[in-house]
């Protein structure tokens, strides 16, 4: 490690440089990425809120910073942003809890 730490906020600004080692793929990724976030069936604000929720799920600090700013730029407020994170958290919690049915099934199978 060059700077003895993971996650340097300055690295976010260097995201575009990933093309340095594989340009055609990076170009395709960024073109697609740009297209994804355009106003469409969902508004740019709705897409930014989804991105913010996903950023929390994948626990990407770059994405959290970037999409906090984007959400505010697109007119979202604190309540909307926190609700989006709760949606992500609820799905994460639910996805653990739903497995408990398997636990219950198996336990019932092997117990009297």
């Amino acid at each position, binding site marked *: 490690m060059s700077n003895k730490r993971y996650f340097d906020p300055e690295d976010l600004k260097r995201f575009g440089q990933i093309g340095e080692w594989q340009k055609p793929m990076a170009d395709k990724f960024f073109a697609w990425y740009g297209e994804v976030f355009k106003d469409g069936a969902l508004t740019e604000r709705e897409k930014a809120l989804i991105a913010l929720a996903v950023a929390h799920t994948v626990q990407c600090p770059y994405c959290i910073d970037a999409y906090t700013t984007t959400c505010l730029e697109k*007119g979202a407020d604190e309540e909307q942003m926190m609700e989006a994170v709760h949606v992500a958290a609820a799905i994460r919690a639910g996805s653990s809890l739903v497995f408990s049915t398997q636990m219950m099934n198996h336990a019932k199978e092997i117990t009297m």
Partner: protein
Amino acid sequence: MSIHPRTQTLARRHSPLSDTFFQLEVLNGRALTDTKIPPFSETISQVGYSDGVLRPTRIEILQVNVGKLCNQACAHCHVDAGPDRKRENMTKETFDLCLEVLRRYEIPTVDITGGAPEMNPHFRWFVEQCSALGKRVLNRCNLTIILVHERYRDLPQFFAQHGVEVISSLPHYNARRTDSQRGDGVFEASIEALRLLNAAGYGQPDSGLKINLVYNPTGTFLPGNQEALEREFKAQLQRRYGVVFNQLYAITNMPISRFLDYLLESGQYDTYMQTLLDAFNPAAVAGVMCRNTISVSWEGYLYDCDFNQMLDLKVNAPGVHIRDFDLETLEQRSIVLNQHCYGCTAGAGSSCGGQVV
């Protein structure tokens, strides 16, 4: 209903930034910060404005800043307006000089701003005179003034009677976002004032009475797409409060006066200036408001825009006072540029009428 500012004017705090020269020193990296961004004129010279010169188109708007007195003290105010600015108020004589110019030239629009313009004792008379001249009259009303005292309560009817187009800041449909910038209680009072304006016909279909809202970011980020924000504001204000309005103007925060103070105090000045520079949009230059506007100060001095006025950068023309107003020479001037101009050319651009591209 009462409102409580969260900040005081730079003047009252005796901040060094209340000196416009000092602000320019900061913006040019010679005081408090050594941030160097390319001179604005150099940047536009690279996108087709030879020698970095920006010229006006036609003067279509006389923007009259009638004073710095205001019942609010917003955290980002570029005027450094507030309740303590009682001295800076346009006199009847200066208003008369403005009217003379409006009579003499075919300048179709008068854009009245402040401070809270309604607190100037000659405000109503001036509106009546402009209206009688057949001008399109815009008034930048902070909304809460309507509720602050009994004597302002009939403003919606007064505006309607004279066909005044009302332009009002509402940085968010969320109370916390709005109050964080404009002061505690401002959101609630603004909604109440909007209801009174709606009741007087403003924003209602076919009434011909327009209330346009101004969105500006409540922090160090840039405004998003104006149309998308307008759709969201319309839906949310209607759903939550039953309030209607005509258009939303998205405006970028200018790195001057109290917003500059906030940027410096919060350690975000460098990042914000870099954000503006990174978002520089050559296409926005052509539409900036200084190209079709002359701004008049409470003392009668002439400026390219309200921002240059607050930095005391007077017009580059032989006559710099309203008494020497000469349309022909003013239309031949070069616009005075400085580093704050990046605020009007970032992203989709920004002007008193919202985004420009």
